[in-house]
């Protein structure tokens, strides 16, 4: 399957559909199926955790502290007897919301900055481009410290700092795509046909510049979850007793030699989400670039 082009070189959405089996199930790689299942599980956990959890995320049981995984507590209990499986399930919403929220912040900023840097007047586009180059290597950790100092440690601080920290990369990509599309034959043809700049931007430049971002955004959600968890682990994010995954890792680290499950299972949850979104993102990317045969 290859990407096709129409007259004037305008890329066209691949007309070929995903192959299906005899019973109508899409023929996707196993890794994509598995990733989809993981995302589905955590999506349900985020939407309605009570469907999947076995206990309350906050209910303590002092007679059952640091219990290893068992039938009663699938992933064991923490230092005050809270069920770890249920805490991971209940923590999904916050972890994913931070990931998605950070991506939303990054995307909004990237669209405004990227298109302005590409299509805006020179006096603003030039300095903006330089600003993006300066922001690109700026460490997210420093931004997080700044926002935690201003807003206090919270999900909002995490969301803003991770979102702003990743904006520059996406903005540069949008700028490059917008510049490429602007010089393409179909845009020149549209100009020759007398279409207004606004129409050309809305119908040609924006959709075509944005398309490669769909895959990157999917990849970025996983990365944002990892970033947010990392910052919570460092104490810059959500505070206990929140079951946010990074906070779970932070709370369990003192007990790692006597209760391995407190670090391993939240770690696995983070890795699974990051890997799943990465797999799906790559698949979408390969399909959009026509690399899949």
């Amino acid at each position: 399957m290859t990407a096709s082009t129409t007259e004037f070189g305008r890329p066209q959405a691949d007309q070929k559909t995903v192959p299906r089996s005899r019973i109508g199930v899409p023929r996707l790689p196993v890794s994509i199926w598995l990733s989809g299942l993981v995302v589905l599980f955590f999506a349900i956990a985020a939407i309605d955790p009570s469907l999947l959890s076995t206990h309350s995320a906050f209910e303590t049981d002092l007679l059952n502290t640091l219990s290893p995984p068992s039938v009663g507590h699938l992933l064991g209990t923490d230092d005050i007897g809270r069920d770890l499986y249920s805490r991971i399930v209940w923590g999904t919403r916050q972890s994913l919301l931070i990931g998605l929220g950070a991506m939303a912040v990054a995307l909004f900023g990237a669209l405004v900055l990227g298109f302005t840097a590409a299509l805006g007047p020179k006096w603003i586009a030039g300095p903006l481009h330089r600003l993006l180059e300066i922001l690109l290597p700026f460490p997210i950790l420093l931004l997080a410290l700044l926002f935690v100092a201003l807003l206090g440690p919270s999900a909002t601080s995490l969301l803003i700092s991770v979102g702003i920290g990743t904006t520059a990369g996406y903005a540069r990509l949008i700028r490059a795509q917008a510049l490429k599309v602007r010089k393409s034959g179909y845009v020149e043809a549209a100009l020759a046909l007398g279409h207004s700049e606004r129409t050309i931007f809305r119908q040609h430049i924006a959709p075509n510049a944005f398309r490669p971002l769909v895959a990157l955004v999917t990849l970025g959600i996983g990365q944002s979850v990892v970033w947010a968890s990392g910052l919570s682990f460092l104490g810059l994010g959500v505070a206990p007793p929140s079951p946010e995954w990074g906070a779970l890792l932070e709370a369990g680290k003192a007990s790692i030699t006597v209760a391995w499950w407190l670090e391993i299972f939240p770690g696995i949850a983070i890795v699974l989400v990051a890997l799943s979104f990465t797999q799906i993102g790559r698949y979408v990317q390969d399909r959009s670039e026509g690399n899949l045969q």
Partner: protein
Amino acid sequence: MNKSFKEIAQASLALTVTALSVAFATPGAFAADAGDAGQRINGGTITYVHEQEPPCLWGGWVQQAYLSRQVFDYLVSYDNGKIRPWLATDWSESPDRKTITFHLRKDVVFTDGDKFNADAVLANYPVWVKGIGWHSFTYMTGFTKLDAYTVALHLSEPNPEIYNVLANGHYGFQSPDSIAHNTPEQKCLAPVGTGPWKVQKWTRGEGITFLRNDKYDWAPPNAHHNGPAYAAQLDWKFVPDATTRWGALLSGEADVAYQPPSVQWKNAQRQFQTLSFVATGRPQALSFNVARGPFTDQRVRQAFVYAIDRKRIVAAVFKGTAPYEGNGSLSRSTPLYLNVDDDYPYDVAKANTLLDAAGWTGRDAQGYRTKDGKILDARLPFNQAIIDPEGAVALQVIQDQVKAVGIKLDVIPLTQTQGFAGADSQPADKEISFGYWVWPSPNILDIVYNDKLNGFPNGNNLSFFSNAKIEAQIMDAQREPDPKLRFQKFAVLQKWFDDQAIAVGVYDFTYNVAISKKLKGLWQDKGNGLLNFYDAYFVKG
């Protein structure tokens, strides 16, 4: 043959005597601790990893006393209930017990060369008044010079525990020259004392390097040796995370680690040497806001306490590193302490009955109690420099347990900066406070329940309690000359505060350290638990 045997015997005896003489003439030649094994190494660098980094080396916070104790010396030393001489050789009290005359040592020199004498004592007093916010609760009003090496300390009230206070790490002496000429930053980061160590460098966020005071020769009698410290250098590192401190000790990067994670305490006792000290003063206690809000009602306060299983919480969270403490006013190591551990046993039914009786009979959708449309909601902000992560975990259990009786508890963590800047400290900001107050005297009651400090609202009074009659009773107990009657009066007061549930204890603030087996002689002062690195030394092997 007999002659030669005699010659050999004489030579052996002479050698033995010489060896013993050399050994005893060498400073610090005595064993530092009974039962200490191994051959001592003079010199070396002790690395200690501690949790909190205070703003200055000296001040009114106990975390500052831990540091000051290394650099300063004190008039007297507190030795397991006995007061021993230190910079003062002896003292006497006036008949009204409000004047104490101290005779000072004449051979003490500050590390900048200044001499310690009566003028030095007088020069330090204004520094104490200015630098220690709670100074007035010592009832000291000033010193007068009687001669070059004699001073009289004046008190506004008799204070039998004034010696404990003078020994507790806050009332050390700085050189008059440094007080007069050093910059505020120098006085904050590297004050000049007479102690066994002097500050070489304080790197913010990392630690302090102390160098041995080679001229030191005035250790208190309860020290294990006299003369300079055994080790040449003390590296005091600030490592806020308990797991990292524990890791540093395990890897050998540190020789002593403060507050290892509770879950590792049994390992620490197996693999290392350990020291523990229950701090005097007030334990980690819940103080209810009795000035406004739902806890003005005694029944609601008592219901809150009945709803929490304090003994089990402490056992589960601290795993033996800190004892349960029922008394919210005095910790078990404080003089004249009253044990009320069995009051307010865990009793959810009783808590519910009390809340019903107080009129909190409605319930919202989440099960929280309501009254006149208001939720029974309590805010509990806490300073993370005062309450460590394990204390915060204990608060999470309390939050869960009071939810079972319909009380909504909001636990709000504050950073060290926020906490010390006074965030959430007013009566309108909170319904419950949680924290300790290290103090070696039963007049801690005056500190934590007096509504005024120097004419202003007393920031140490976390329950915003104000009762002139009770305050008069506290001062009456403080002034009581008969020790038995004094104990009874303080016991009545402790029981009253407990019955009223104005403040209830949860656990005692305990200073635990784990020590590498290659380091011997380290000990804790019995007033504040201050570590004395002066006597610590490395052994071979």
